[in-house]
């Protein structure tokens, strides 16, 4: 950190939208925490940094932490006249509460954010609040109102940072699809994706791609769905967007189910359910009902024994392993052959490959196998020499192809 902590905080705050644009905000969480450490609680710079920290945590699917940062701004603003960071914090908190299923609190925050934003003339806060209210109407089944609010948000253009202005396409795509207007939703999604690509806006691309995959699947365009899914998974890994990664893995299960691969579908859905349980994430009731029916059909297609094995396999996967599996399943063309030389691996080396695929670090592997971290490194070097697998993701893929994870 620079010798001047106040300058570091101003610099980090000024870089926030660029980090969002390039999909880097989640990865800058620790740096933002350091920059905020010496700031006076409740000061302007501190409040702005709390917004960035909250969004960074939200991208990483750490909703409790995100909620804490946004609430900190609301608490700090309790006895003060409204200001921009407060409207953003309220609107951002409303979105997190929506994802957590706390819809009444979300609607209350969104309405307050909209009133304050209009009172002080804050277009960014107004846009975000309208987006929240659009989702509120959507969840309540008032699709006409949801679309109207999304379009109203899209008309606010002046003085809005690009990544924020472009979320309107994402909101509109979702609410149009939920309203059953799939053709218009596809148009909004394609326009949004083109805008995001032109701007090099990775955050909006990673948010929009799952919505486009959803539309592809609903229209039976499985080839397009696989291509969009693959692009979205790569971007979600690159930007650390764990929520979108989970969505992508879940959608890969949908794609497998739609293309007659019931075993793979059950494995991927079980992997998502395990992560959801572990991280306390919830899905809307309508989604749970649809998923239960999909699982029932896949189990019927497979039979009880194979279905149980497929689900146990998924439940044991880490998020990274499930993501690598989904990438393998969406590869274009015929399945790739195993890495050359993998047949020469010893039983001990396969054991290491499996542990790497389970997400263990070298230090964790050393502790588990009662060997030194240096010996682990030597083993991995030999494995890499034999198989040509340079990255840990390649080793994960090797283990997946061998059915070891």
């Amino acid at each position, binding site marked *: 950190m*620079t010798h001047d902590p106040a300058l570091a905080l101003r610099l980090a705050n000024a*870089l926030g939208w660029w980090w969002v644009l390039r999909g880097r905000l989640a990865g800058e969480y620790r740096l933002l925490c350091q920059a905020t450490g010496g700031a006076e609680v409740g000061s302007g710079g501190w409040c702005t940094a709390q917004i960035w920290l909250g969004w960074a945590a939200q991208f990483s699917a750490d909703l409790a932490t995100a909620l804490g940062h946004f609430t900190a701004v609301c608490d700090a603003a309790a006895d003060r006249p409204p200001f921009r960071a407060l409207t953003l914090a309220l609107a951002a908190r409303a979105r997190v509460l929506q994802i957590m299923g706390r819809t009444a609190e979300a609607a209350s925050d969104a309405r307050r954010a909209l009133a304050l934003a209009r009172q002080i003339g804050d277009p960014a806060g107004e846009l975000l609040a309208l987006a929240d209210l659009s989702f509120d109407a959507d969840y309540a089944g008032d699709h006409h109102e949801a679309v109207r609010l999304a379009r109203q948000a899209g008309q606010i253009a002046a003085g809005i*940072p*690009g990544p924020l202005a472009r979320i309107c396409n994402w909101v509109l795509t979702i609410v149009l699809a939920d309203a059953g207007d799939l053709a218009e939703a596809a148009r909004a999604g394609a326009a949004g994706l083109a805008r995001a690509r032109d701007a*090099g806006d990775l955050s909006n691309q990673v948010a929009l791609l799952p919505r486009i995959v959803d539309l592809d699947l609903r229209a039976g365009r499985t080839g397009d769905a696989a291509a969009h899914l693959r692009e979205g998974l790569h971007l979600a890994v690159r930007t650390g967007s764990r929520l979108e990664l989970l969505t992508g893995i879940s959608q890969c299960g949908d794609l497998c189910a739609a293309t007659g691969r019931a075993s793979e579908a059950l494995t991927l859905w079980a992997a998502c359910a395990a992560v959801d349980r572990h991280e306390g994430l919830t899905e809307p009731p309508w989604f749970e009902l649809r998923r239960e029916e999909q699982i029932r059909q896949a189990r019927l297609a497979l039979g009880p024994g194979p279905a149980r094995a497929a689900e146990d396999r998924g439940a044991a996967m880490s998020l990274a392993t499930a993501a690598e599996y989904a990438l393998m399943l969406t590869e274009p063309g015929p399945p790739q052959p195993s890495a050359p030389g993998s047949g020469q691996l010893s039983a001990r080396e396969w054991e290491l490959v499996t542990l790497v695929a389970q997400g263990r670090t070298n230090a964790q592997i050393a502790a588990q196998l009662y060997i030194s971290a240096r010996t682990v490194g030597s083993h991995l070097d030999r494995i890499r020499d034999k198989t040509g697998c340079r990255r840990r993701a390649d080793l994960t893929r090797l283990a997946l192809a061998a059915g070891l994870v």
Partner: protein
Amino acid sequence: MLETLRAYGAGLSVAAGEQDGAAAALAGYALGVARQAAGLQSGDGELAAARWLDAEDATMRQVLAGR
């Protein structure tokens, strides 16, 4: 190559006893760039602003890391 030059320059400023002044000047420069670029992110200058910050990434990292 740019990192090598950066390290070489940092070494020279330390040898001359000017590292604090150089660090403060660099930090001021970084903040100026970041603020100007942030001001362009709401309009037609967004693409140029993002590319400017991409080009200054190493400088931003150096200032934020306090090296």
